[in-house]
């Protein structure tokens, strides 16, 4: 009985402490989480009905992005609700980067499936993208698991280094630029308004996804913590999700808007 009272008083004490995380950050991340959850769910049903490689790769990519956002949101919420007593948001950020880079790899596989064929496929580009992201993942593990110190897993760990973040932004940019260029070429040459609109949305999604990583880099680079760049990054992530939803799923309202049937 005494233990229960002690636990309740500890919880009340924790709630009285104010977290450094602004509530707006949770709202921004929660919005993106809803967008990516909706997109992932729709892509899963598309993949279940078609079982095509391209759809599978796109579904895996957005599932991994969803997990990344989920990691960030859940750990940040934990920090917020406990007044930073349970400090695991750094772990959430680092694992979020890990999942998002895996998402980038599968997004490039999707680009390769749809926009390249035997005549114009670039030799070893797929392998290059996979390996470079693998290198990033290897270095990220150091930050996630703190392997240099005992005990092996030391939560919360330290933030991803600026050098690694620069490398991550550069590697991610390569895949997104290729998707953007191919989708934009298709936009220019498309014969129908509906196709043009769809390809344009895919182009926008690639640009926004690329900018998400750039804005997070700028947030870390400014060193202020929850700077304006942080919120811009999350708004951009939500926009990327919305453009992907329209571009990849082509909802009926969008089709009708462009005069399609």
């Amino acid at each position: 009985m005494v233990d229960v009272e002690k636990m309740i008083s500890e919880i009340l004490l924790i709630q009285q402490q104010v977290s450094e995380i602004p509530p707006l950050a949770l709202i921004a991340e929660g919005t993106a989480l809803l967008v990516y959850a909706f997109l992932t769910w729709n892509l899963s049903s598309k993949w279940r009905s078609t079982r095509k490689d391209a759809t599978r790769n796109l579904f895996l990519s957005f599932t991994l992005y969803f997990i990344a956002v989920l990691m960030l949101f859940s750990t940040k919420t934990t920090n917020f609700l406990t007044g930073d007593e349970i400090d695991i948001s750094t772990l959430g950020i680092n694992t979020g980067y890990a999942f998002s880079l895996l998402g980038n790899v599968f997004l490039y596989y999707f680009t390769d499936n749809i926009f390249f064929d035997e005549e114009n496929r670039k030799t070893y580009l797929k392998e290059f993208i996979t390996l470079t992201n693998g290198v990033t993942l290897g270095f990220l593990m150091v930050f996630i698991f703190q392997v240099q110190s005992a005990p092996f897993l030391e939560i919360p760990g330290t933030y991803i280094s600026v050098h690694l973040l620069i490398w991550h932004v550069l590697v991610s940019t390569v895949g997104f630029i290729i998707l953007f260029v191919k989708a934009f070429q298709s936009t220019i040459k498309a014969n129908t308004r509906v196709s043009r609109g769809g390809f344009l949305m895919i182009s926008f999604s690639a640009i926004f996804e690329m900018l998400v990583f750039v804005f997070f880099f700028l947030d870390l680079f400014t060193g202020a913590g929850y700077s304006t760049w942080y919120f811009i990054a999350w708004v951009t992530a939500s926009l990327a999700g919305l453009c992907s939803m329209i571009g990849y799923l082509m909802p009926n309202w969008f089709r009708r808007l462009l005069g399609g049937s």
Partner: protein
Amino acid sequence: MEDTQGFIGLWIIDKDSGIPISSFEFGHSKTDSVLFGGFLVALRGMAHDFEIGQLTSFQTDNANLIITGSEAILSVIAITRESNSDCWYPTLVTINNHAENFYRSYQEKELIVDTGVNEHLVPEFKRIIVKNINSLKSNFNDHCNSKKEEKVADKLKDSGLW
């Protein structure tokens, strides 16, 4: 491997019986022309019976098969799924006209078309096909790229996305 701009094979068959008149594939022939001719005529017959219109093309996982016909023959060309059908259709029509003239001249003379005679057609087919391959190589960007974007859209639709 030789760049064939997506060309896989060509078959000329008798329209009514499905008997093969001639065929051409780069390298070793991989197709049983007799079996293919019978299959195609049966497929055309089914389309006619079901009243769903003429069979003009069909697809497999890897190839597009385009069909054209005239009075006595059917010409079928197989190209890869990534190739532009419109870039090969005029060639198919040229080949079909050439083969039709050949076949009718033999029918008028009441000669039986056999494999030995059909071999005479192959160099002409090869010349027409190679001419189209070279034309596609040199004019690829101007002539076929606009259609390639439709292929990308088709791939998205085929993946269940659009």
